């Protein structure tokens, strides 16, 4: 008997490994008409893991002190062997994570997977999106460059438009009247500890819900489940006759990860400064605001919305209503139909919303 076999048997009698593999991998059947878009969740898990690894590696040399932060990042980029690679992986990865997260949400939207009984999947995913935006915002300050400093000043300033508590909230966020060393300490703690723990917890919940409720079938093709949700009692939506997760869909997941890596490495090696404008290479100067300071691309629509409205509070309210509407969409859109072409009102709103979002982003970039 081989050593591998012995280890397997030892574990099997104690943990029921064969049963676990059968239940969670080879016998875990997915809809027969499942498509490539379903693998974006796995791609996101991969990106998040890469962000955690590169983030931990950056912590080896990064100094969270306003006097030393910029020089420590400069040393990582210029002195530490392959430091540039680790940092660029983190910078490019953070942007790609937001992009893939948005694509994942769009696929869920267009295939109607957010509909009941998966309201909680959607909500937990929405919370993950919010946390990813928050981790990006807090991470933006850490290099303590002109870009970091002033983008954070602008971002925290907008909270001041909230009536009554606005100015206190701004001060609370910054740890002082202005962005300074205390802001760096707060944002550092949020970026490396608080928000990552929140994201991991929400990913855990998201995956638990996915497993418990069952994978939704794409609306393209015949319904394959014999146990559809009817609202009377809990029913796990299984897919008899579907394709096994292992090895079939795992291979598809890995193919998607490989495609993602191709794009990721393309940016990393051929356009490394795509997400690092000129001001990212100048140390923070609290007495000199650079001209045309802009937030990251995914915050540009919010930035432009605030600029459109004459009153900042109205701008914030409009965004708040939009975000709340999107978060509560499964509770508003209660129709059973999932096929996008059979939901004309949804299609008009979704396509219009996406075009508006892209339009505001472009406008914000050139304004």
């Amino acid at each position, binding site marked *: 008997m081989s050593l591998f076999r012995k280890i397997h048997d030892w574990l099997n009698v104690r943990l029921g490994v064969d049963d676990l593999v059968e239940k969670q991998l080879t016998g875990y059947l997915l809809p027969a008409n499942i498509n490539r878009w379903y693998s974006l969740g796995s791609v996101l898990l991969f990106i998040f893991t890469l962000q955690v690894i590169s983030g931990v590696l950056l912590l080896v040399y990064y100094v969270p002190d306003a006097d030393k932060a910029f020089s420590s990042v400069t040393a990582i980029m210029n002195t*530490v*062997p392959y430091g540039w690679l680790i940092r660029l992986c983190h910078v490019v990865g953070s942007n790609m994570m937001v992009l893939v997260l948005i694509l994942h949400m769009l696929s869920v939207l267009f295939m109607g997977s957010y509909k009941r009984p998966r309201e909680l999947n959607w909500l937990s995913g929405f919370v993950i999106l919010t946390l990813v935006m928050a981790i990006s915002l807090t991470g933006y300050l850490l290099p303590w460059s002109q870009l970091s400093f002033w983008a954070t000043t602008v971002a925290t300033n907008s909270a001041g438009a909230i009536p009554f508590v606005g100015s206190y909230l701004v001060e609370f966020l910054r740890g002082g009247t202005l962005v300074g060393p205390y802001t760096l300490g707060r944002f550092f703690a949020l970026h490396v500890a608080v928000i990552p723990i929140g994201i991991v917890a929400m990913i855990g919940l998201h995956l638990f819900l996915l497993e418990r409720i069952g994978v939704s079938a794409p609306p393209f093709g015949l319904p394959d489940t014999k146990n559809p949700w009817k609202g009377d009692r809990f029913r796990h939506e299984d897919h008899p006759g579907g394709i096994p997760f292992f090895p079939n869909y795992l291979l598809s997941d890995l193919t998607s990860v490989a495609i993602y890596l191709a794009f990721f490495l393309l940016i990393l090696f051929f356009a490394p400064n795509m997400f690092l404008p000129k001001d990212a290479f100048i140390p923070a100067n609290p007495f000199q605001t650079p001209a045309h300071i802009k937030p990251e691309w995914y915050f540009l629509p919010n930035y432009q919305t605030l600029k459109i409205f004459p009153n900042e509070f109205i701008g914030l309210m409009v965004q708040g209503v939009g975000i709340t509407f999107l978060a509560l969409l499964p509770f508003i859109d209660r129709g059973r139909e999932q096929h996008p072409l059979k939901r004309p009102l949804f299609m008009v709103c979704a396509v219009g919303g996406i075009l508006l979002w892209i339009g505001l982003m472009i406008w914000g970039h050139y304004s």
Partner: protein
Amino acid sequence: MESSSRRKFLVTCLGAMGVTGLGAVLYPLFRYLSPSKDAEARQKVTFQLSELAEGGAHYFQMDGKAGVLVRPKGGTIAVFSAVCTHLGCIVQWQKAQDQFICPCHGGQFSAQGAVLGGPPPKPLEKLPFVVNGTTITIG
């Protein structure tokens, strides 16, 4: 048979690609985490002789190691590594006795670095230095 050899070839290619990919990831990671020689390197350390009174000692860092510049009473200036040759503790200059004592296990060294007593197996390592007028340059 043909199918089996093709499979074997493909598995070998896949394995080689995997090993290459793993190497491409692990090598930068190893280099990134390896201690940097440049970061600790201090090319030379310079002092003014006036900073050091007779019978006194001055501690400094060079190449990531502790060193000591000593000016014994009536003696000539000497520069040593301050690391005890026994177990690596930092030797302390005793002005009154004109000698070094290691606080860890009581090793004793003369102002010239020679072992006077205790467990140290060899003398303190001498560091090269140049005196130029009122300036001393170590390294």
